[in-house]
């Protein structure tokens, strides 16, 4: 591994156009090892698209991605996985009719060879899935349950557990706490702190601004497909971030609302 670059991830000049709409316009993003970056912006600002570019699910029209100083070009999510970039998708990306263990190991099922043929090693899969869930404190009675029979919070926990459990270098989480109860949100924030302490770089996309101030080192604000601002968490406040997200034109109302709530960082 070349440690010449101070950045774990460096995306420069990323652009993506879906026919009439320029979803991403010359966007850059940097991420250091162990850093937690909050990516915020209004709906349609391009946060999810940018993170999908990094996870290989979307191929950009232009721009370069460097990981640990080496230029990579992801043509599929398999490439990003091989580079140990893992993502928790907003829609969770689970197969409802496949069991819990099957979803956790989707795409990297343990195999065993029998008479020269490759079969799923289901016993190992369920045992390791159980260990994985216990390690993350996720309560699911049986790893043989189909995911469709689980609650929203359990489903989200599985999506998070899957991304966090295979030794990622970069962990992208798109709205990971949307369906979670209060205690479960705390568990996810603890998980983010724990993995970043291990040196995993984390990108957190969320509308819950208070969460950002609890776990992030830095916040990057996007607006209509462009970067508009970057702030260190220690040097900004919720009011300023709200203003940056909604754009200057609503500055007075937004700041007033934030002031009346009165939640300084």
């Amino acid at each position, binding site marked *: 591994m070349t440690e010449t670059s101070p950045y774990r991830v460096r995306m420069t000049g990323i652009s993506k156009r879906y026919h009439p709409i320029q979803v991403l316009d010359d966007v850059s993003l940097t991420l250091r090892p162990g850093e937690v970056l909050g990516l915020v912006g209004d709906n349609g600002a391009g946060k999810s698209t940018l993170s999908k570019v990094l*996870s290989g*699910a979307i191929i950009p029209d232009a721009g370069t991605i460097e990981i640990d100083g080496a230029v990579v070009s992801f043509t*599929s*999510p*398999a490439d*990003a*996985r*091989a580079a140990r970039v893992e*993502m928790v*998708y907003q829609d969770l*990306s*689970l*197969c*409802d*009719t*496949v069991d819990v263990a*099957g979803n956790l190991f*989707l*795409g*990297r*099922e343990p*195999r065993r060879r029998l008479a020269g*043929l*490759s*079969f*799923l090693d*289901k016993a190992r899969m369920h045992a390791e899935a159980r260990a994985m869930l216990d390690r993350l404190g996720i*309560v699911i*009675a*049986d790893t043989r349950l*189909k995911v*469709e*029979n689980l609650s929203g919070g359990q489903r989200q926990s599985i999506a998070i557990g899957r991304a966090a459990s295979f030794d990622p270098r970069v962990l992208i989480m798109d709205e990971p706490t949307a369906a979670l109860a209060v205690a479960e949100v705390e568990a996810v924030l603890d998980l983010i702190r724990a993995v970043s302490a291990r040196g995993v770089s984390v990108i957190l996309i969320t509308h819950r601004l208070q969460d950002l101030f609890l776990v992030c080192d830095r916040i990057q604000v996007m607006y209509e497909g462009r970067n508009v601002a970057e702030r260190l968490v220690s040097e900004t406040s919720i009011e300023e971030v709200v203003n940056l997200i909604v754009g200057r034109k609503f500055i007075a109302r937004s700041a007033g609302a934030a002031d009346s709530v009165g939640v300084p960082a």
Partner: protein
Amino acid sequence: MSDNAIKQQVPSRLVTASWHEKAIARGGVVSIALFFVVVCIVFSLATDAFLTTPNLLNIVRQSAPLLIVASAMTFVITTGGIDLSVGSVLALTATLSAVLLQWGVPWPVVVLALLCLGAAVGALQGFFVAYEGIPAFIVTLAGLSVIRGIALLITGGYSIPVDPASGFNVIGRAWFIGVPVPALIAVVVLVIAYLVFNETAFGRYVTGVGANAEAVRRAGVNTRLVTLGVYILTGAAAALAGIILASRLGSGSSNSGQGFELDVIAAVVLGGTSLFGGRGSVVGTVLGALTVAVIANGLILAHLSPFLTPIVTGLIILVAIWLNFRLFKGGSRSR
């Protein structure tokens, strides 16, 4: 302490509910198994000839093409696709086997070549479905028309005889250790299909593609290749069925297998495989195919009009699926 109590309670509740839960989780298979048993009992009581070894072996022998193609179709339908061209592929391979044998091509070569042809036809259709994104219904509907047309063009509409002395006839007519060879071939295919569907990564991805193709793609799986693969399976299975049929009947007819695709789809759907994808069962498909075969056989033995077969089969399809939706509701949470 209270935390412990909850944790102990959860698994114990699961154990007590397991019989019912399993029945619900496998609702499709359970309801078709019930139908199968009921139909068998009814015909055993109504006729003397039904429950005899020769008759049961005859049922399996006659339904071998259906069983083979339905097991492959289970994969296609589980991905959320459909293959309407299997009847036409069957007709094409049946006629081509007769034609090639008349040309003096050795029969093992004929069999291999036609299996490859079936797989190639499947691959071509699978390419349009998986890589070009054309709906499977359209691609295979076109295939149904074109492939049947080729078979008709080759034969001019006539049926072509197979030399009765040819070793080719072993496939459809011979018996081995007291069992008809077609039945043995069907059993081997079904065992392989069961293992691939349930015990391999490919089978897992087939279910995954039907449930959430984008999730499987994001997990780093080449989903297009999986989709292409299932159409190769139906193509090759239909070719095998065509070979068995030509061998059993001693001739290749371009008119064979008309409506066969509908029998196959009916067997698969009866077995609890969802047409929307994501849910499939090879065991259910076997039961579905055998139920259809037993009804046809039993009605003839009971000296009832064979024309009742489609009526009864159709009604059972409707009632079985209705039972799935009503009686076993809860196996699939509607969202």
